[in-house]
């Protein structure tokens, strides 16, 4: 049996992974909750966020605080891209069959993924961690936790809470929740639902882009990270419950721990364990652990 500090380190690494997954899956879940479409391109937005962060770092050159500027700039750029895609393309498919909407988002995966290859090549890109957090680590219970991971672990719940409060307490948030329930009635009450959908896409893409930008100092940015992460995000939203906010958070936590401890105990079959968990949830509780059955 491994000692406590090892288990602790393992659970912390699972927690870090969970926070990234939450950032990605939250946007996916938001779009599904409101528009009832699984956006395959969401993983691509995440990848583009990482590339954009790299690009902004290049442009900004050396200087203090440039990582934070680059990360925010990248998230904003991806948010803009998401808004444009919704406004000029996706919008026209709302009346179409579900399958066509899904294939459209998959076509975006192909086009944007290849566009990233054209722009940045197939060589992996890496971004150095911000000097304020890089290279330093905290020792806790015999485990070493880099400051950057600690920052991510703290940032995750902050974003979750902020996002949740926005949905619960603000006017825009109430409209988003209403749109998820009944689009027609909301429109009849005089709310501009079209604009609302665009904003949902902008917000979701912002979160996806931010996730990509923030992971770039930890993992090298490579083509193919989009198709990998999107399936992981699917697992998260399915475990927690499609369209359920806290379900997504919870699902990400579970995923992180299963992956992290799966590697420890069954090094070869940890990916297997994750998908088996997804299948088990779908079989026993298709609407997820915290979700509610869809009509």
């Amino acid at each position: 049996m491994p000692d406590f500090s090892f288990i602790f380190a393992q659970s912390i690494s699972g927690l870090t992974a969970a926070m990234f997954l939450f950032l990605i899956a939250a946007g996916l879940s938001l779009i599904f909750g409101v528009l009832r479409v699984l956006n395959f391109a969401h993983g691509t937005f995440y990848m583009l966020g990482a590339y954009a962060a790299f690009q902004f770092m290049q442009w900004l050159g050396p200087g203090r605080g440039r990582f934070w500027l680059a990360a925010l700039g990248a998230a904003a750029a991806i948010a803009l891209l998401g808004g444009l895609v919704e406004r000029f393309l996706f919008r026209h498919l709302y009346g179409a069959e579900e399958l066509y909407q899904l294939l459209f988002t998959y076509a975006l995966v192909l086009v944007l993924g290849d566009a990233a290859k054209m722009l940045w090549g197939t060589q992996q890109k890496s971004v150095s961690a911000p000097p304020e957090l890089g290279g330093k680590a905290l020792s806790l219970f015999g485990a070493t936790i880099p400051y950057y991971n600690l920052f991510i672990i703290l940032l995750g719940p902050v974003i979750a809470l902020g996002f949740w409060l926005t949905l619960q307490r603000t006017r825009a948030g109430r409209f988003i929740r209403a749109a998820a329930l009944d689009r027609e009635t909301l429109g009849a009450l005089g709310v501009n639902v079209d604009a609302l959908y665009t904003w949902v896409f902008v917000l979701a893409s912002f979160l996806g882009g931010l996730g990509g930008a923030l992971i770039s100092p930890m993992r090298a940015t490579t083509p193919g990270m989009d198709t990998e992460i999107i399936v992981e995000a699917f697992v998260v939203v399915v475990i927690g419950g499609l369209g359920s906010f806290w379900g997504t958070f919870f699902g990400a936590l579970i995923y992180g721990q299963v992956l992290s401890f799966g590697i420890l105990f069954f090094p070869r079959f940890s990916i297997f364990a994750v998908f088996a968990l997804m299948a088990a949830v779908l079989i026993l509780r298709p609407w997820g652990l915290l979700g509610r059955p869809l009509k």
Partner: protein
Amino acid sequence: MRAPWELALLAAALLVPALGSRFYTFLANDVLIWALFATSLNLLVGYTGLVSFGHAAYFGIGAYTTGLLMKKLSLPFLIAFPAAGVLAGGFALLFGFFCVRLTRIYFAMLTLAFAQIVWAICFKWNEVTGGEQGMPEIPYPSLDWMGRLPLVGGLRTSDHFYLVTVVLVALCLWVLRRVVGSPFGRMLTTIRENAERAEFIGVNVRRYELAAFVLAGAFAGLAGGLFGIFNRGVFPDFAYWTKSSEVLIMTLLGGMGTFYGPALGALALILLNQQIVSYTEYWPFVLGTILIVLLFVFPGGLAGAAGTALRRLRRAA
């Protein structure tokens, strides 16, 4: 009236090696296998109205079955090929049992989860599947007897395998065609149109859906078995989710409302790929763009567009 052009097509397919080009035979072989794979998916998506995101699982299972039996156990193709269909069908029965209990997005997600499980196993079970490296050097079936036949005797082994593929794919398509046209097939269409009504008239919807799922899986497995040999190797990405979407695209591109639509989609996509890759390495970009245009301009797919054009011509005449 329908048979003659199908027979003519079969004859034309059999004549491809006579062109003497290794490349044309290779392309035709690729098209045929994918045509079978896409047609098997269409039984689910087009005829039964079940959108599977994990059809590659059965293709992969079939490919690994035939590959393992022929390479590791040196069993003859005559056993290894049907085994691909049987095993893929068996897994489709197991997975489908759970999948058909769900609807729409949940159905799609569960098929995806099962397919990723298959992929994860192929990817990591090094001792049996060769893991990430896959299983190269799958032998060709021993087709020495073809060398003694008149006409085809002088052809290459790959040409012999191509002829076997033509006959087997034609047989599979014929069976699928019979299935679709049978009362069973009609019932699948009824379920697609209105599952609730089908239930009211006393149809066990789940059982029909499961039967369609198993059939689709079995034929995908047969396609996979052929593909492993054709490709001279079996790799985990045969079962990865992007393969499932590739075949879904073929089905949609060709038009899922028609029997031969998906086969047409396979033909169009593979030929287009061959053309494009000689100009640019960015094939996915081109494919994605085509797909977007298609979604906005011809939602009925190629077969649908052709049908509309044909009707317009007739009206004009």
